[in-house]
């Protein structure tokens, strides 16, 4: 079981990107669930500028990659946008995620960043996210094997 070995430059870039990402999440106050809840309760619309600013920069990078450059220097990967297929899961997942985000004011990235600002109660949310990810994995594995059994007995 060998992991992809992209070399030390790859990891250095991941570290640099992660540092900037986390710095920005703290700078924008998104690492504070209280501020995110203020947005969701329609009291402070600043979050739109966080997402908008981040999407603008990322959009420029995607334009540069896909239109000017060809392949990424560290992996040889051809640049592409993020295009995931649309299906029922996208809708169900969006609704469940929205309910969780609205209840807690925490999403994955802001949860990690919140640890960095010393917000120790956020461990409740981080543990919860791992539990949730594990539960959906169990459930989907169970569902998959159940449908396979049905198919076999139906032959």
């Amino acid at each position, binding site marked *: 079981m060998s992991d992809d070995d992209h070399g030390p430059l790859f990891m250095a870039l*991941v570290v640099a990107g992660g540092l900037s990402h986390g710095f920005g999440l703290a700078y924008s106050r998104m690492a504070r669930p209280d501020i995110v809840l203020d947005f969701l309760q329609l009291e402070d619309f600043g979050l739109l500028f966080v997402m908008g600013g981040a999407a603008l920069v990322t959009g420029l990078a995607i334009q540069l990659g896909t239109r000017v450059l060809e392949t990424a220097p560290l992996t040889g990967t051809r640049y592409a946008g993020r295009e995931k297929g649309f299906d029922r899961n996208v*809708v169900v997942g969006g609704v469940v995620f929205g309910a969780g985000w609205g209840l807690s004011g925490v999403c994955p990235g802001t949860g990690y960043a919140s640890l960095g600002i010393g917000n120790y109660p956020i461990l409740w949310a981080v543990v919860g996210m791992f539990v949730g990810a594990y539960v959906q994995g169990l459930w989907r594995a169970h569902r998959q094997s159940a449908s396979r059994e049905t198919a076999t007995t139906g032959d």
Partner: protein
Amino acid sequence: MSALSIAVNLFPRGIDHYLIGGLFVGLGISVIYLGTGILAGNSTFLETTLSYASDLPRFQREKYVTSRDWRVVFAVSIVAGAAVYEFAFTAGAFVTDVQWWRLLGGGILVGIGTRIGKGCTSGHGVSGIASLSRTSIVNVALFIGVAVATALVVASLGVTP
């Protein structure tokens, strides 16, 4: 009401730190993308990290096992980057007033929802929107709408914060 006072009502804390923070958030994703071609999201870390501990085939998929190491490094760097800002540029640690059961319950739903829905606020909300992906636009509209409704209902039940 003048345009200015409406703007002040919508943005009681101003917009500067929101916008500047957002630019850093996007810069982090962009640096990794331009070097590697990878649009790094945040929720995949949850499932890939579970592959260290669980034999469930779902978590042992090749694309998870081959990316789990750098995703851990990415998440740890996010923690460090946030710490740099908070402890070097502000008065220091922040501790939330949001109640533990909201954090735990919300966290569980977030863990389920982002993995079923193929992404979170960074994957769909930043990289997906930046790609003008229709899948992401639908997902983001849904999760913001449901989150606003949830937060308003919880607040109307008198839960603070």
